[in-house]
C-alpha cells in the first residue's frame, strides 16, 4: 500500500479542515528570552553546599543539543569524589537531618517548592537549552510538576506514622539516585523530594548530558538554607553512577533509566541490604477502539508519542487501531503530524524540539532504518529541520508486525509504530506481548470496556481516554522488566523508609 499516493488522491480532512501537508499560515518566530539566565562557564561538584572541583580536576563539556554549541564545563567526578559526597551525606544524616523533627524538614521542602515556582522561567529556559525539549513543555509541564512534587512530599515529612501506622517508619540513611536526561529537573524532584521528606540525605547523579538544571537546583538548596550535605550533586559518566550506587555507606538506591543499565545495577546490589527501586524502559501500547472519539484520540496519540520528542519511558510508542477505524484514523493522524512544528526548543510555538544527543539521534535513526528494512511503511511529514543540532522528523510506521524491532525495542524517539486488531482479546494479547510493562492507553467511549482493558493491561499506569498525565499524588512505575517500586503518592514514600520495625 502506497500511503503517500493515497494522500494525494484522497486528501484526509482533519477536524480543523486542513489536508495533509497544508499550512494555511506561517508562524513568526517567538523565541523565549535567555538574557535573564546565567549559566556559569564551569560547575564543580556540589558537596556539602559548596561547589568544589573534582579531584583530580577533570571536566567535560555540556552542549545545547539544538545548536551543538557548548553551554558549560562540568566536573568529572572521581571515585574519591563519590566518597566525599557520600561522606558529606552520611554525616549530614547522622548529625542533622535524621534528628530534625518532621515538621521542620517539611518547611525546608516547602521552601524549595516555593523557590522553584519563583524561579520557574529560569529553570524552564535552562532545561530547554540543555535537554532540547520545547520551552512550552519545560514551562508548562517539567518545572511546575517539579515544584508540585516538592510541595506534595513536604506535607508527608511530619505525617509518616500516619502513612505507615504501627510500623515505626524511619529514614534509611544516604540515598544514591541516578537519573536520566529526558526529564532532568522533574526526575530530580521525583527522587529528592520523597527522600528528604522521609528523612534521608541524598547524593544525586544527573545524566552527563543534562546536569545544568541540577546544578541550578543546587543554588535553590543554598537559597533554602538546607543544612550542608543534605543534598549533594555529582556529575560524571555511567561508571561514576555505578561507584555511587555500590558505595558501602549508601542505604537506598533509586535509578531511572534503561532496562539494561537497571539490570547491571540490580546485579551489583544483589546480596546487599540496600533498598532498591528501578524505573526502567517501556514500550507502551495505545489502543484505539472503533467507538473512540477520534479527534480526541488523535491528540492523545500525538501527545503520547511526540511529547518530549518521544524521549519518554512511558511513551505510547505502539499504536493499536481497531481495523474498522484504521483508515480514517491514519488519515487524520498523518494530517495532524504535518502540522507539528519541529525546531528551536526555545521557540514558544515549537511542538517537537531537539533529540538530546548525537548518540541518541544515531540510535533513533538506526531503529527507523531497521523498520524500513524489515518492511514497515514509513510516513514522515514534509518539514524543514534546522541546519544544526540533533533533530528528527516525527515519524510513523504502518504495516508493522509484532516481530519488527520497531514494535519490540524501546526507540526513545518521535517514532510511532502502528498495528491493528479486531477484537479486544487480540488487542490485549498483542499489547501485553512485550517484556516491558510501564504504561498503556485505552480509547473507547464504552465504560465497561475501559475497565476490561484496564484490568487486562500488564502495566503500572493506564491512561483511559487520555495519555501522558503525571501528578505527584499519582504513583508511577512498572510491571515486569519496566522495573519495581513506585514513585509518587503514598506508595513513593515507602520506598524511602525503613519499615522493618527494627530501626537501624
Amino acid at each position, binding site marked *: 500500500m502506497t500511503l503517500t499516493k493515497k494522500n494525494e488522491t484522497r486528501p484526509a480532512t482533519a477536524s480543523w479542515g486542513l489536508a495533509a501537508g497544508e499550512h494555511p499560515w506561517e508562524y513568526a518566530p517567538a523565541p523565549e528570552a535567555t538574557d535573564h539566565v546565567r549559566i556559569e562557564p564551569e560547575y564543580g561538584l556540589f558537596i556539602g553546599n559548596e561547589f568544589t572541583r573534582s579531584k583530580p580536576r577533570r571536566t567535560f563539556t555540556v552542549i545545547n543539543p539544538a545548536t551543538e554549541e557548548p553551554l558549560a564545563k562540568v566536573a568529572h567526578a572521581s571515585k574519591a569524589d563519590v566518597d566525599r559526597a557520600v561522606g558529606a551525606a552520611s554525616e549530614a544524616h547522622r548529625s542533622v537531618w535524621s534528628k530534625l523533627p518532621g515538621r521542620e524538614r517539611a518547611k525546608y521542602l516547602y521552601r524549595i517548592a516555593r523557590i522553584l515556582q519563583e524561579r520557574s522561567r529560569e529553570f524552564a529556559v535552562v532545561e530547554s537549552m540543555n535537554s532540547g525539549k520545547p520551552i512550552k513543555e519545560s514551562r508548562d509541564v517539567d518545572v511546575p510538576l517539579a515544584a508540585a512534587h516538592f510541595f506534595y512530599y513536604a506535607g508527608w515529612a511530619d505525617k509518616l506514622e500516619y502513612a505507615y501506622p504501627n510500623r515505626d517508619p524511619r529514614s534509611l540513611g544516604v540515598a544514591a539516585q541516578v537519573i536520566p536526561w529526558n526529564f532532568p529537573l522533574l526526575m530530580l524532584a521525583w527522587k529528592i523530594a520523597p527522600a528528604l521528606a522521609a528523612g534521608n540525605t541524598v547524593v544525586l547523579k544527573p545524566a552527563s548530558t543534562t546536569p545544568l538544571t541540577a546544578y541550578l537546583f543546587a543554588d535553590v538548596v543554598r537559597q533554602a538554607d538546607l543544612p550542608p550535605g543534605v543534598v549533594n550533586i555529582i556529575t560524571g559518566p555511567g561508571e561514576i553512577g555505578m561507584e555511587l550506587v555500590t558505595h558501602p555507606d549508601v542505604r537506598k538506591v533509586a535509578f531511572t533509566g534503561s532496562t539494561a543499565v537497571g539490570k547491571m545495577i540490580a546485579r551489583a546490589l544483589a546480596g546487599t541490604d540496600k533498598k532498591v527501586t528501578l524505573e526502567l524502559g517501556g514500550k507502551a501500547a495505545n489502543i484505539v477502539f472503533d467507538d473512540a472519539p477520534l479527534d480526541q484520540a488523535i491528540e492523545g496519540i500525538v501527545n503520547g508519542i511526540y511529547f518530549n520528542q518521544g524521549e519518554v519511558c512511558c511513551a505510547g510508542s505502539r499504536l493499536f487501531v481497531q481495523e474498522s477505524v484504521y483508515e480514517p484514523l491514519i488519515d487524520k493522524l498523518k494530517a495532524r503530524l504535518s502540522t507539528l512544528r519541529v525546531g528551536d526548543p526555545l521557540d514558544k510555538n515549537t511542538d517537537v524540539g531537539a533529540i538530546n544527543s548525537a548518540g541518541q539521534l544515531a540510535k533513533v535513526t538506526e531503529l527507523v532504518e531497521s523498520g524500513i528494512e524489515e518492511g514497515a511503511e514509513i510516513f514522515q511529514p514534509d518539514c524543514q529541520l534546522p541546519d544544526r543540532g540533533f533533530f528528527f522528523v516525527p515519524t510513523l510506521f504502518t504495516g508493522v508486525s509484532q516481530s519488527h524491532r520497531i514494535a519490540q525495542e524501546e526507540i526513545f524517539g518521535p517514532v510511532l509504530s502502528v498495528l491493528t486488531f479486531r477484537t479486544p482479546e487480540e488487542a490485549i494479547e498483542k499489547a501485553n506481548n512485550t517484556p516491558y510493562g510501564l504504561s498503556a492507553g485505552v480509547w473507547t467511549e464504552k465504560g465497561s470496556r475501559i475497565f476490561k482493558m484496564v484490568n487486562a493491561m500488564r502495566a503500572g*499506569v493506564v491512561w483511559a481516554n487520555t495519555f501522558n*498525565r503525571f501528578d505527584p*499524588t499519582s504513583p508511577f512505575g512498572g510491571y*515486569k522488566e519496566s522495573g519495581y517500586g513506585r514513585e509518587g503518592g503514598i506508595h513513593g514514600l515507602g520506598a524511602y523508609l525503613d*519499615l522493618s520495625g527494627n530501626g537501624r
Partner: protein
Amino acid sequence: MSPRTTKTATRARDRRRSASVLEQRAAQPLARTGSTDGRGERIGVRKTYKLYIGGAFPRTESGRAYEVFGAKGELLANASRGTRKDVREAVRAARKAQPGWASKTAYNRSQILYRIAELMEGRRDQFVAEVMAAEGVGRARAGRLVDASIDRWVWYAGWADKYPQLIGTVNPVAGSYFNFSVPEPTGVVGVIAPEASSLLGLVSRLAPVIVSGNAAVVIASESRPLPAVTLTEVLATSDVPGGVVNLVTGLRRELIGHLAGHMDVNALDAFGADPGEAAALEEAAVENVKRFVRPPRGGLEKYRWTDEAAQSPYLIGEFVEIKTVWHPIGA
C-alpha cells in the same frame, strides 16, 4: 550464569554439603509416622511422597528419590528428588492457573483459604505427628506450630477482600481526572520454603503470596519436606484450583537457581533461603527483573514464626503490583 554467580553458588553449596542429607545414608527401614509397621497383625500402608504440580501428584521426571531423616536420625521416607524439568513444569502449571485464580472474586479466594484451614484442622493429628518427626519437637510444641499454621490461613483468608483497601488509593490529582491505584497480583511467584520450619514457615510465606491471586512454585525444605507434601494433599481438596500452588521437593541446590533464573517467574520469595545462597539467587533473578524478597540478615535461626510479626498485610504487598488508572472527568 555469570562466573560470579557460579562462584558464589559453589561457596554456598560447599557450606551446605556437609549438612546434606545424602551424607546420612544408613541402612534402616522406613519408620514413617502414623504407620502400623511392626505391630504384628497388620502391615502398614505407606505413603509415597510425590511432587504436586498442576493439581496432580506426579513423581519426579528423574525417577530419583532421596532419603528423608527425622530429627533423631531415623529414616522417615524417600522423597522425590525433583529436577530442573520438574521446576519448569511447575512454572508452566502456575502460569496456566494464575489468571483464573486472580479473576475469582476476593470473597471466593477468601473462602478457599478458609477452607484450607478447615481441612488442616481435620488432619491436625497427622500434621502434629509429621512436624514432631521432622523437627524433633515434642507433641505440645508441634501442636502449637500446627495450630499457628491453621490460624495463619484463617488470618490471611480474611485479608483477601480487605488488603486492597489498605494498599490501594484514590489519588487527588491536580486536574479534572479520576485517578486511582489498585494492587494486582504480580503473577507467578517462586517461594523458597524455610529449611527448618517445615510447616508454619511454609504456610507463613505461601499464604500471603496466593491470597492476592498469585500462583506459587514452592521449593520445599530439603531436610524436612514431608509436612509440605501433606499440605499439598490438603490444598488439592480445598478448592484451590490445580496449579495455583505447586511443590517440588529435592536437593535445593539443584532447584533454586533454576527457579530464580526462570524467565516466566515474576517474583521470588527468598526469605527462606540461606543468606549465603541469597546473593546468587538475587543475581539470577535480575535477568527478568524479578521482584525479590531477601532473607533476613543473619538468617532465620532466631526468627520466631509464631510471633505476630511473622504475619502482615504488607507481606501481601511484596507480591502485588500497583496499577494506577487515569480517566478524564467531563460531560
